[in-house]
């Protein structure tokens, strides 16, 4: 009886399913099973059959026996390979990937939101899709011990990628090491793998099967807020056990304040021990409170200032959270530590940014100059950036960066670009003075433009100070200006030019930014415009406005007074300050009585262009001829006269002695005149 009984419902359900298929087929009225599986297998049962996918040759043999015994054995080929429906045989190659979500939509959705799904949609070649875990034609139910997703198989399935040395573990940012190894040694792994307890947790018990998310994600099953709920799925009454320490329900409600399970029971390494004894900070301080404690290897001081730690941002973080890898069962739990503190295990996003930055790239190359987290943030005394004592507090950041980037320091030494004396220049700039002299913490400092962790050279297209990104970087504070600028002719999305279009720094500079209402800046801006608009700037300096500004006065029309500063448009654009509708009111800003005729004044006129300005050209040459003619006449007349006049004077001075007798006083006064 016992052996027959289970077969009854299975037999019943398969008969019911066959009936269902027949009914659906007949009701739909179309031959939906036009391609029977046997049609497909006519070819695909050939073991040597090969096909192509994306240019690669692949085996397309389908094992009929395995497929028949798989959970999908009763389905038609075309219910998964839907793109072959009603196609003539033999069909085209390069089939569309099978979409499991057609039937398994809930799982599909969870997967697409998960770490794996996101990596897949990014095109990460290491990202797993359905078939990487479940297989293809040979999918077995999880209840089948042979299934890849059978309870006992799961650690090895996940371990394919997450074991030490696997590409994922090496090339992707996974903050846990020796996962499979540690798990298999843990109390969970021991129960599952050695004792064969199928109720012992496997990977999916904590991480879920499809909704795998990083622990930093608030909706992750292993996130700080949810980890208690995940553990209590099995350890239902654990609250009572921990009541003394965590006061029951507070544990779950304020997961951010109180320790979470993993703070004591390290993931993948959980053992049946009294962690409160081995893992508490005070146990670390038993040795590290000693002021003379030194490392045996390099003699560096290992003393920990408890006051410093207590006032730090991490005062609620236990030692072992950062110094991971301790083994509470040892007398010296720290002797099992093999790796340096990895801040990214909590600050995952920041860690990823850092890795992509120039600083992180240098670190990856083991460059001795590379700054790590602690170079900027410190170690045990780490403070939040809003704490004025912190080195990362806004007003302290320039000094922090200056440690390496000041002229003569290590970063400045290896720098090959064109920006020099940046620390000094910044200090003199409007931003630097705002920050340091006025103490405005909202003023732009180093990280406001360069970002804190994503620091990249301006040549990198991902850099916040790359030409493409600069307007939005400056626009984070100067948003109104950015709005105008992105609409202007200088914006890369609008302006069409062979020359490089200007961005903020081309006119305002990078580190020497001055107030725009400063005299010097106002005068300087004309040469800035003139760097690209060479001819138009030259002709501007030929007119009254240009001449006055050339003398060093700003109370005259400069480029931006007429063309606008950030909202420059083509003159032909109706939005331009100089368009037909706007030009008169633009002139009226300075010349209240200006009319349309007045606006006809040529502000960029030159008398050197007979084509464009014939009136000016001919007036100029008319006047010049008059000048040359008059001077030639006067000059020749004078030059011809000179010898005769000298002759006269010589004759007269010969007569002087005669005159002296009659009029000595007169002639002596004349001599005096000559001498004076």
């Amino acid at each position, binding site marked *: 009886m016992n052996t027959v009984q289970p077969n009854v419902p299975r037999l019943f359900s398969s008969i019911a399913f066959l009936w269902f298929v027949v009914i659906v087929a007949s009701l739909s009225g179309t031959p939906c099973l036009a391609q029977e599986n046997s049609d497909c297998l006519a070819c695909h049962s050939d073991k040597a059959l090969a096909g192509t996918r994306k240019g690669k040759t692949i085996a397309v043999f389908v094992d009929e026996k395995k497929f028949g015994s798989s959970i999908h054995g009763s389905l038609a080929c075309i219910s998964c390979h839907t793109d072959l429906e009603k196609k003539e045989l033999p069909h085209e190659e390069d089939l569309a990937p099978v979409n499991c979500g057609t039937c398994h939509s809930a799982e599909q959705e969870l997967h697409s939101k998960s770490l794996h799904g996101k990596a897949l949609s990014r095109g990460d070649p290491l990202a797993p899709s359905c078939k990487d875990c479940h297989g293809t034609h040979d999918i077995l139910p999880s209840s089948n011990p042979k299934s890849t997703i059978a309870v006992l198989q799961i650690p090895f399935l996940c371990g394919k990628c997450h074991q030490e040395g696997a590409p994922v573990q090496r090339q992707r940012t996974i903050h846990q090491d020796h996962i499979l190894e540690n798990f298999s040694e843990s109390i969970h792994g021991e129960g599952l793998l050695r004792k064969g307890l199928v109720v012992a947790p496997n990977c999916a018990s904590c991480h879920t099967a499809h909704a795998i998310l990083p622990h930093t994600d608030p909706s992750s099953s292993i996130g700080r807020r949810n980890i208690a709920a995940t553990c209590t799925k099995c350890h239902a009454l654990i609250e009572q056990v921990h009541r003394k320490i965590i006061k029951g329900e507070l544990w779950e409600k304020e997961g951010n304040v109180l320790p979470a399970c993993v703070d004591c029971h390290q993931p993948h390494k959980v053992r049946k021990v009294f962690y409160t004894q081995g893992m508490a900070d005070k146990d670390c301080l038993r040795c590290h409170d000693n002021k003379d404690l030194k490392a045996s290897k390099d003699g560096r001081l290992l003393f920990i200032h408890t006051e410093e730690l207590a006032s730090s941002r991490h005062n609620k973080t236990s030692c072992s959270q950062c110094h991971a890898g301790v083994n509470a069962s040892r007398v010296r739990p720290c002797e099992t530590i093999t790796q340096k503190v990895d801040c990214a295990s909590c600050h995952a996003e920041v860690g990823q940014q850092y890795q992509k930055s120039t600083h992180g790239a240098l670190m990856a190359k083991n460059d001795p100059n590379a700054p790590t987290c602690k170079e900027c943030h410190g170690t045990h005394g780490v403070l939040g950036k809003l704490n004025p004592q912190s080195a990362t507090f806004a007003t302290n950041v320039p000094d922090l960066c200056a440690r390496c980037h000041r002229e003569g320091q290590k970063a400045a030494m290896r720098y090959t670009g064109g920006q020099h004396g940046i620390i000094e220049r910044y200090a003199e700039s409007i931003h630097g003075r705002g920050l340091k002299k006025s103490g405005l913490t909202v003023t732009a400092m180093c990280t406001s433009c360069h970002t804190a962790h994503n620091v990249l050279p301006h040549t990198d297209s991902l850099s916040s100070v790359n030409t493409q990104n600069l307007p939005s970087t400056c626009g984070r504070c100067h948003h109104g200006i950015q709005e105008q600028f992105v609409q202007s002719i200088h914006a890369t999305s609008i302006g069409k030019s062979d020359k490089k279009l200007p961005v903020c720094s081309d006119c305002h500079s990078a580190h020497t930014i001055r107030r725009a209402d400063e005299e010097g800046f106002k005068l300087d801006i004309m040469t800035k415009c003139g760097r690209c608009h060479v001819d138009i700037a*030259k002709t501007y*300096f030929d*007119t*009254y406005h*240009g*001449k*006055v500004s*050339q*003398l*060093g*006065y700003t*109370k*005259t029309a400069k480029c931006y007074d007429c063309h606008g500063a950030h909202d420059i448009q083509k003159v032909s654009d109706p939005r331009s300050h100089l368009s037909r509708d706007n030009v008169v009111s633009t002139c009226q800003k300075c*010349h*209240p*009585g*200006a*009319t349309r*005729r*007045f*606006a*006809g*004044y*040529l502000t960029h*006129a030159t*008398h050197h262009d007979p084509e464009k*300005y014939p*009136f*000016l050209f001919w*007036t*100029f040459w008319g*006047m*010049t001829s*008059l*000048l040359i003619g*008059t*001077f030639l006449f*006067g*000059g020749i*007349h*004078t030059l*011809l*006269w*000179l*010898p*005769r*006049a*000298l002759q*006269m*004077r010589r004759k*007269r001075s010969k007569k002087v002695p005669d005159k002296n007798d009659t*009029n*000595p*006083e*007169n002639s002596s006064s004349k001599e005096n*005149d*000559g001498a*004076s």
Partner: protein
Amino acid sequence: MERVKQEERQYQRFSRLNRVLHVVMIVSFMSLALTGMTLKFSYTQWAVILSRFFGGFESAGYIHRVAAVMMIGLFAAHFVDLTRRKRREHGTWRAMIFGPDTMLFNKRDLRDFIASLKWFLGKGPRPEYGRWTYWEKFDYIAVFWGITVIGSTGMMLWFPEIFTLIFPGWFINVATIIHSDEALLAVGFIFTVHFFNTHLRPEKFPMDIVIFTGRMPLEELQRDKPAEYKALIESGKLEEYLVEPYPPIVIRTVKAFGWTALAIGFSIVVWIIYAMVFAYR
């Protein structure tokens, strides 16, 4: 005794009003030239310094306009003086314009000019110049031309909003070119040709102060303007024009003023040459 008498007997060539007007003319002309040049040659360093000296471009502009009004005023005053003189000395405009002492060119000037050229080339004696030589007349008439041209374009630049009610905007550009080039002509001519003809030519070197004192020694009149001297002797009117010379303090003051004007004039010439030859972009 005779010495004193000799000194007393100087010929009065210019009336008090004419002398005052010339001083006003010098002051206003120099001011106009200096302030205007700062703009014309704004690309030179001296223009920047000069502009600063005048208290900036706006204050230089005020000085320029005040001086312009002064010059227009003296022009008007000269017209009034001409009308009065016509009534007193000539009776009609016709008599004045075509009389022997006219300021306008006539046949005699053409003769004098040709004779002068011959004299320059050593082919004849020095002509017997009259009361007004042709180069003096040229200077005088040039002022009329200059004031008309520079004054009218200057008004356009002063009141562009009013002038563009009638003229198109580019007239202002044209006016700028005419104003500045005509001014360059005036400044250049006065500080070179006029300076030479009047002050620097060897007979007068270093300066002729008759325009400030109004009087010149008789023997100088005799030598310089023989025809006028003869006419005065013949008509017997010489006595009417003989006046006492100024005391030395006046002469010294006048000379100081003259030196200043000459120095400014020459500086301007040097600056212009520098700007046009060495600094021109």
